[in-house]
């Protein structure tokens, strides 16, 4: 267990148990909430955005009480928050720290860039294979076309 440094002031209050997602690009905080389907979350959820950060200038943070994500679930946010850090809190103490990494497959959340793809007309969950993690290129399981980093958008 790591020893906690004395804090001056917390902009977003501490949680007793759960997951802290830190270092989210400010503009993507609400995207992360959407990807993790937290809009209807029934427990305590603390959100901070445009907070000062030494590393990033401005950053966002989300603290989710009583929630411990599976890695394939949380890794999806790497698409919009590749620099995010994950902190597991138990009994107000940090018990684990980690980083997100881009998964091999991305289901449901991304919209295929190809307007003529069947996933954009029929009610079908999208499925992508990540063929290039560095440049972020996704190949659609259905139309086989590639959606590149700059064209990634999310399904409603």
């Amino acid at each position, binding site marked *: 267990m790591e020893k906690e440094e004395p804090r001056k002031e917390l902009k977003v209050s501490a949680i007793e148990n759960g997951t802290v997602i830190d270092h989210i690009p400010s503009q993507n905080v609400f995207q992360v909430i959407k990807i993790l389907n937290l809009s209807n979350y029934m427990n305590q959820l603390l959100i901070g955005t445009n907070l000062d950060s030494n590393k990033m200038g401005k950053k966002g943070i989300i603290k989710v009480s009583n929630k411990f994500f599976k890695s394939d679930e949380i890794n999806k946010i790497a698409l919009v928050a590749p620099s995010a850090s994950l902190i597991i809190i138990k009994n107000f103490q940090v018990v684990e720290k980690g980083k997100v990494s881009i998964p091999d497959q991305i289901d449901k959340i991304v919209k295929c860039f190809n307007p*003529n793809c069947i996933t954009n007309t029929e009610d079908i969950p999208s499925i992508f294979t990540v063929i290039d993690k560095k440049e972020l290129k996704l190949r659609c*399981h*259905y*139309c086989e076309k590639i959606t590149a980093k700059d064209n990634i958008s999310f399904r409603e």
Partner: protein
Amino acid sequence: MKNKSLVSINDFTPEEHIRILELASIFEKHPKQRILEEYVIATLFFEPSTRTRLSFESAATRLGAQVIGFSDAASSSVQKGESLRDTILTVSNYCDLIVMRHPKEGSARFASEVAKVPIVNAGDGANQHPTQTLLDMYSIRKTQGSLDKLNIAFVGDLKYGRTVHSLVMALCHYNTTFHLVSPPELKLPSAVKYHIKERNLTYYQYTDLLEVIPKVDILYMTRIQKERFSDPLDYEKVKMAYILKNCMLEGAKPNLKILHPLPRVNEIMTDVDDNPKAYYFTQALNGVYVRQAILAAILGVVD
């Protein structure tokens, strides 16, 4: 291959491709075998494609199968707003195999995941048309004796032509040397070239058709479509450059054959048709044998 859907050319292994070609040559010798008398085949054409549909229906009928289906979406329940999923689920109750053509890319893959029966993709938008690829391979192998180490030229619209993309990918297993002839705007996409490089094969790019003719065993012609050009002037500039005339074939190799997926508009002059090197209509006939082989193999009546 029994019960396996054929959506993308890579769904079958190179060994399975060759097996289909071998079966097709048996059907060429004996086209009328009533080995599918017990079977019902559905041809669902959500967009019209008379040539492909008739080729499949001819193949199925020659094998004794019953054929049901529709030839365009206007005459089906799609017009009433039925989803593809519901159409496929329903029709798979009525038949043993579905042949489908659909304007949306990925539709055949989706159908193969929903259907209880195997799906044969007869074209999904600009994505895949694997039976065309297999009949192209059959035509090449039949006219050249083998698929190995051939010099093959692809001419015309190499950017959008799905038959070109699939055939290039399939031929990458046979030490092919590729000669790519197109206007600069319509070059083969880098994703397809990537497959050639991955196999350490060679490709040459040309803008001049005449230069390539003496070098190759197969000349695979495609149509350059006007709507591919944002500026109609650009189209006018290139359209004449990729038209094959009989007089251009003088220096060609004796074994050269000219292929075209059809329909042809004007990219091969009609004076080429009588040249023994013209093979495109026989190529269309080969399509029936290849589709007989595909139907029979997937339904498991041949091994």
